[in-house]
């Protein structure tokens, strides 16, 4: 399969991602630079898991939201939407390629984590799937935000406003053992499953089974992805 010159939206993003060597090096190194020392340290498992979760969520949300709003501002995305390509396909490709590239950035750091904290293969798989789902959710939030603003700065603001309550509900820092309505809410937040899987990787025991950490976030993110793809005509509209 030929990637360059690109003949599809996702290929264009892949070409751009690998096209700038210095930026590529930074993109690949910064998750490692943050997560590597955390994995090597002896900080409590819940905080180590939280750091990885937050890096993934922030990278996903800001990455998708900022690149989308900058393309929308520029007018190039609207120009692409005036080709016969389906707007739903464009948004799906934006989502899919951003998630895959974000995951690729996280892989070296995850490799270090699994190397320093050996766990059964099923938990490695569960953590990877749950983190992938977290990236899908984070990118969905970024794309959703781009529906309402064309300013990258606003993306940061809105993302923070949306993510902080979700972090709280997920049990990243406080609220480690929620009950009642918070527990019910937590089960709908895909970040929570990545958090549980990573806690297990770092040596804590949680009530989440590996299968739960795989199936639930995939289902939730599938629904989120579907929902965000339906915003395509609104997202790609000409803005004044």
């Amino acid at each position: 399969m030929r990637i360059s010159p690109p003949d599809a939206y996702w290929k264009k993003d892949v070409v751009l991602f690998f096209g700038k060597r210095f930026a590529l090096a930074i993109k690949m190194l910064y998750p490692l630079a943050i997560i590597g020392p955390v994995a090597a340290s002896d900080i409590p498992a819940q905080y180590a898991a939280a750091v990885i979760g937050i890096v993934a969520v922030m990278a996903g949300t800001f990455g998708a939201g900022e690149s989308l709003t900058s393309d929308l501002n520029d007018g190039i995305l609207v120009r692409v939407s005036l080709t016969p390509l389906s707007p739903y396909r464009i948004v799906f490709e934006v989502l899919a390629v951003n998630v895959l590239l974000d995951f690729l950035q996280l892989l070296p750091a995850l490799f270090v984590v699994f190397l320093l904290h050996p766990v059964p293969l099923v938990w490695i798989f569960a953590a990877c799937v749950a983190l992938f789902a977290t990236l899908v959710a984070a990118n969905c939030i970024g794309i959703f935000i781009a529906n309402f603003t064309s300013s990258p700065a606003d993306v940061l603001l809105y993302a923070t406003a949306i993510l902080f309550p979700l972090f709280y509900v997920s049990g990243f820092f406080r609220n480690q053992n929620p009950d009642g309505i918070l527990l019910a809410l937590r089960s709908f937040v895909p970040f929570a499953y990545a958090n549980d899987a990573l806690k297990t990787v770092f040596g804590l025991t949680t009530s989440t089974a590996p299968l739960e950490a795989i199936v639930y976030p995939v289902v939730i993110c599938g629904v989120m992805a579907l929902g965000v793809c339906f915003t395509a005509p609104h997202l790609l509209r000409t803005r004044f």
Partner: protein
Amino acid sequence: MVKSPEPALEAKNIYRRYKSSGRGVEDISFSVAPGEVFGLVGPNGSGKSTLLRVLSTAIEPDGGTFFVAGADGLREKRKVRARMGLMVDRPTHYGDLTGRANAYFFARAYGVGAAKAEAVVSELLDFFDLAEYADDRVKTYSYGMGKKLALVEALAHRPEVLLLDEPSLGLDYTSQLAFQRKVRELSETGVAVVLASNQVDEVESLCDRVAFLYRGKVIAQDTPEALVSSVEGVRRISATLRNPVEYGPVAAVPGVGRVVPEGRNLVVHCGERPGIVADVVAGLVRSGGDIVSLSVERPNLEDVFVKLTGEALRRED
């Protein structure tokens, strides 16, 4: 009876108003036959770009409808987009991709096969003198090169209808000629072209018919010849001066409608009456102008533009 061919583009009572500014277009109807070049002319803010945005399916009209090669512009947007080539007034590209990659990406997005896309893109890049820069990143391109690349992107899929918004603005002279040659060539092969431009000489030389827009309405629509003949009795006196002057005395000459400074030139639009040329020259001399050359030209679309917008203003008063 011979059935007239289906219009390539047919707009019926298009109405679109922006809530924020109150500007837009209203009740615009026209049709463009295959192979016809149709010009849209009008002052800034007259609605040309808005109309093209509606026709390109970028925005929906508040009222009215349009058809592109028989496809409904409101219900069959993807069909319409596939049949249409589009160049917006401020074209943008992926700056970190090369010119060739940008053009290839758009050709493929329009459904052109891989091998054909490569061939057509190379041919068009060559035609518009971009071959040498085709593998440079677009962010290194000048404004004019970006516009030429946008033309390549608009043409690569061999559209049936071509919408061009200020296509030659910013192009160098050679590129303007190449653009005009390409439009004529496309027209001969049956492509319908809608050309929104304020470069009236280009519109006059390229277009089979022209619509004048003013404050969102079509105030005249005809062939360039018919429109120009409607301003009989108007002259254009073009004077090249050695020095710029305050041209008040020229504007005060009875019969002078408008005086437009264009660099060292002063273009005087005036009515037809005996002695008016001598009076304008006298006015120029009184203004302190040192005349290097002087020409009296036949009316052109610019005069039609001035006449029509002037009439529209008077009607509003």
